[in-house]
């Protein structure tokens, strides 16, 4: 059952610890993991990420790895003929991450939705840090002239006054978890 994965791991030079970790999985889990890793040619780092998340989800939710990977979402990605191999791998990891980090993924999704709703010029980019660590919104402008910069700043200034941007900052600050409320300025 482990053969396709082991052949692939050997060909890619995976470390022994990663192989051992795979072999410690139950037979059904090995089959389910191999069915993603081998055809999508996942790198060792991707495999380690996936194993971490799979094990953590299974421990948290009390499901088996093969049960988790047999969900419709994964079958749909793997069976989507429009997607290339690397896109499928990206989508599989995104789906796993969404299950592994449900609240963080939700906040990130809500922020992304509001940034899209601003319909910013492609030369203006708004991003938040990975995992929301730091609690800031980064704005990047790309201008080739003073006039272009002035125009982009004017549009950005209008965007900054919208409810979407206010909500983005609220989401960054509290993740939709509670109303902002800070201490009284002393320890």
């Amino acid at each position: 059952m482990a053969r396709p994965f082991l052949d692939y791991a050997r060909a890619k030079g995976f470390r022994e610890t990663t192989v051992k970790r795979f072999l410690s999985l139950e037979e059904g889990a090995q089959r389910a993991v191999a069915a993603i890793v081998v055809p999508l040619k996942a790198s060792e780092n991707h495999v380690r990420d996936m194993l971490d998340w799979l094990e953590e989800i299974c421990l948290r939710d009390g499901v088996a790895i093969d049960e988790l990977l047999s969900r419709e979402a994964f079958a749909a990605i793997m069976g989507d003929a429009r997607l290339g191999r690397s896109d499928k791998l990206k989508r599989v990891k995104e789906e796993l991450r969404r299950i592994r980090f449900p609240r963080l993924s939700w906040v990130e999704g809500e922020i992304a939705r509001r940034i899209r709703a601003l319909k910013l010029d492609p030369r203006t980019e708004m991003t938040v840090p990975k995992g929301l660590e730091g609690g800031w919104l980064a704005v990047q402008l790309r201008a080739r002239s003073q006039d272009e910069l002035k125009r982009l700043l004017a549009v950005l200034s209008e965007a900054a006054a919208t409810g979407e941007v206010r909500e983005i900052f609220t989401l960054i600050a509290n993740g939709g978890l509670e109303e902002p409320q800070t201490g009284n300025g002393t320890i």
Partner: protein
Amino acid sequence: MEPFRPSRVFVERGCEASPILRNLRRALADVPFEFFERGAFSFARAGNGADSFGNAKRSLFLTRHKGEFLKKCPGSEGQVCCNYFVINFASNCPMDCSYCYLQEYLAENPALKVFANIDDLIAEADELLSRHRRFFFRIGTGEITDSLALEPYIGFCRELIPFFARQPNVLLELKTKSDCVENLLDLDPNERIVVSWSMNPERVVAADEHRTASLEERIWAARRCQEAGYKLGFHFDPMIEYPGWEEDYRSMVEKIFAAVDFRRVAWLSMGVLRQTPGLRRAMRERFPQTRLLTGEQVFCPDGKFRYFQPLRVAMYRKMLGWIRALAPLPPVYLCMESRAVWEQVFGFVPPCEKELGNQLAHF
């Protein structure tokens, strides 16, 4: 709390006159003692087998410490620091918390060691405190061991407390998850000693703080220390997020302040669960069933995983609210947190570590 029972005590030649050896012999009369020459034994070999870190906790070494006893707490890179000093009188810990950072920090040197040369330790502390009389120090002994878990066997505090109680410019913190306070109760702390507990709800204690005192035992021990004249501290660290954590933590805060007088509490701290990637690997290996690694933790700029920022800010704010409702006066600080999180939780950031240290020292 489960008593500590080493299978063997190894004593370095030259430590025969130490009061620690005398105490160990008395407390562990039925445990075999073996003597060894320094250099003839590699501490790295103290732990062996599949779980070398865990196995190392089964033997106790009494040895001389060659380096400095007193160090500045290293804190965590880029995080707000509280200007704390640490005394390492022992290395490793008889308890076995699944999240313990020593699993990584002491992985190559896991021997459970107690240092016999207390006189050198006291001389070093005396020199530092005398040289800087205008600076007020906060010093703790619970950095790479538990301050009190070995106390019934080694009697270290009976040597240390009288010295620190006489110093005008220091607070000595004894930080523990044990209830081993018997040795402290007839000593005079003279307002210079803070006995503090790392606190978690019983659910966390039972699942992940192996061989420690229960929540009730810790609270009872704190009360006894307070009655004996000690200042107290409580560290809500590591705070763990799980379904129902709010009720458990709120109830724990209520139990604590129903039992102790908040006016005698020197400080309180909060810090969420955090791990380096190396510690995560060690935890997976040693405690594969722990649920601590299933939280929504992300990799932070200082190289540690923590709950994502809005989640932990929400945890801190809730906890601060429960604390402030019952203990409005003692200072509360965050351990190993960023300026951004301080700002969100307290509405300010300490201007510098000395300032924060001073505020904590002079409450």
